[in-house]
């Protein structure tokens, strides 16, 4: 086996590059001497905030039907709505004042939590209107509710540019909701760019699923 993986102390980083051909030996630990790399403390480990595990998907969370191919959007809004259990609190609060039929339709639309975008675009597509309108109605009727909009991109392009593009998508959704009368105070935006794909492949289908904004209620 090649020995390229040898772990030894980094020792001092700096090799004397000066004309003097003698290496400076190990120096006494001096807090201001950053070239002294011996006896490093272990790397800090950052763990997740325990209250918000990302591994288990929210059972009440349903994506707007992911388009099979980039711009076609074969999503049928009716189909993903059927048969899933609604998050109880969100719905109970919201439906109390409405007729059963309207409430049911609204509840179904509220389960749509993922909205998709075209390549390098941040325009909200017509397929997203129904779901976003329902969320707007819910937020207006529940002013204590807080919604986080998470912007995402596909893997093509550079990381920082994609962070900006993901934010542009999340902001487009925020502007749309505010345009419908939602208070901006109820909304927050975070972009993960291409860092958190929902599909891992390198193909059109995966990319289409990854160009998205996810809605996450941080307070009902």
């Amino acid at each position: 086996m090649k020995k390229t993986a040898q772990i030894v102390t980094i020792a001092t980083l700096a090799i004397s590059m000066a004309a003097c051909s003698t290496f400076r030996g190990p120096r006494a630990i001096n807090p201001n001497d950053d070239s002294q790399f011996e006896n490093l403390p272990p790397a800090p480990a950052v763990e997740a905030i325990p209250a918000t595990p990302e591994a288990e998907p929210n059972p009440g969370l349903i994506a707007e039907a992911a388009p099979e191919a980039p711009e076609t959007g074969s999503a049928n809004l009716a189909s993903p709505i059927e048969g899933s259990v609604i998050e109880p609190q969100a719905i109970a609060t919201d439906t109390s004042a409405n007729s059963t039929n309207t409430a049911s339709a609204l509840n179904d639309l509220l389960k749509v939590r993922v909205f998709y975008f075209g390549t390098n675009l941040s325009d909200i597509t017509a397929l997203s209107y129904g779901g976003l309108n329902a969320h707007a109605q819910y937020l207006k009727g529940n002013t204590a509710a807080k919604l986080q909009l998470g912007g995402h991109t596909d893997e093509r392009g550079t990381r920082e540019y994609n962070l900006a593009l993901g934010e542009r998508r999340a902001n487009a959704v925020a502007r749309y909701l505010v345009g419908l009368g939602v208070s901006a105070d109820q909304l927050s935006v975070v972009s993960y760019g291409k860092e958190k794909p929902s599909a891992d492949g390198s193909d059109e289908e995966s990319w289409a699923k990854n160009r998205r904004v996810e809605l996450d209620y941080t307070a009902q």
Partner: protein
Amino acid sequence: MLTRPFGLLKFCLLACGISAASLANAALTIEITQRLNEATPIAVVPFGGVQSADNTGAIIAADLDRSGSFNVVERSKLPSLPSSSAEILPSVWQSVPADYIVVGSVSRLPDGRLSYRYELLKRGGLERVLGETFTVDSGRARDAAHYIADKIYKQATGEPGIFATKILYVNQYNRDGRKRYRLELSDIDGARQVTLLDSVEPILSPTWSPSARQIAYVSFESRKPAIFVQNLSTRQRTKLTDFSGLNGAPSWSPDGKRMAMTLSRDGNPELYVMDLTTNALTRLTNNPAIDTEPRWTSDGKSLVFTSDRSGGPQIYRLNIATGDTKRLTFTGKFNARADISPNDRHLAMVHQAGGNNYTIALQDLSNGIFSTLTDTPLDESPSFSPNSKMVVYATRKGNKGVLGIMSLDGRFKLRLPAVDGEVREPVWSPYLR
């Protein structure tokens, strides 16, 4: 609770001074994928005397081989194994097909330090063109070998070598079914890798301070992006920015006193410069487009950056004092995340070469000539070597992220695959002084 047994073990081994080659699960290994015919042939004789895990001569040979400028004569073709010029029989060695011969030896001093002696001989008269002795601490055998390789490279090519430099990169791996992220530091040959940060949330955009004593990066550990600065000797981290919205793309000014970055705290991704003494922010761009990925020119007066103000992302140059902004790239619809060579001559960037191919391209800023260096589909994050002669970048092999190193003409290429998980966003250190 998640424990870090590996990290602790590593620390223990380190303290005990034991080599732990087999345990470096995230380390890089190197494959040369494309070589040059006209490289200078050189014979590096294994060093005599005290040797640690790797023979000093073998480390030097590997360094020179990977530079693209040398072809190292196979050991089996060496007629003998001299440790000094005095042991060389000219009649035998004159037939060796090498322009240069390197010989040397190591001895241990009573205080434990290592004493090195080496000579570089030129074919023909076998005259010594370089010869030195020096002493290092016992833990610095690899540093000593890289130092000798740098000296040989400088003597033979006239250019400074980069064998004693470091590389910073992000390693994504899986543990317990979850993606995790590590910020890693290693020698440029992949050896002596250490973990600087281990997180369940993404780490990106690592960058070096000009002194190479500190690094900065973006971490999502608080579930939103923040820029951190970390001291490499103490490992101490400080959060530099935590504004609403994007906190990204940190880049140190050449004098080390300012940090360029992308913030969207005023509503849109814009470039800012932070004075690192006062933390005062100056906004540099004001444009509804995305402005991001700043890099300083060596005089500290300008930034090159990515903007989609013309429709798609292209590279621009901003004069910080005057605000004058000039578009630099016009080839293709997508050019982003440029790095500027330390000699200010070249721009390396991610270029959409047509279809879904994102490759590394180079633009010569002296004449505008644009060339595509790679033909792999999802290349990223080019970063120049401090001598401006090589670029390290992230690429794919199969479905896995690996690192590549190539010469600026794209004719010499190396690949550094990760043993565990995938690696990306490599950043080449400045010279270490």
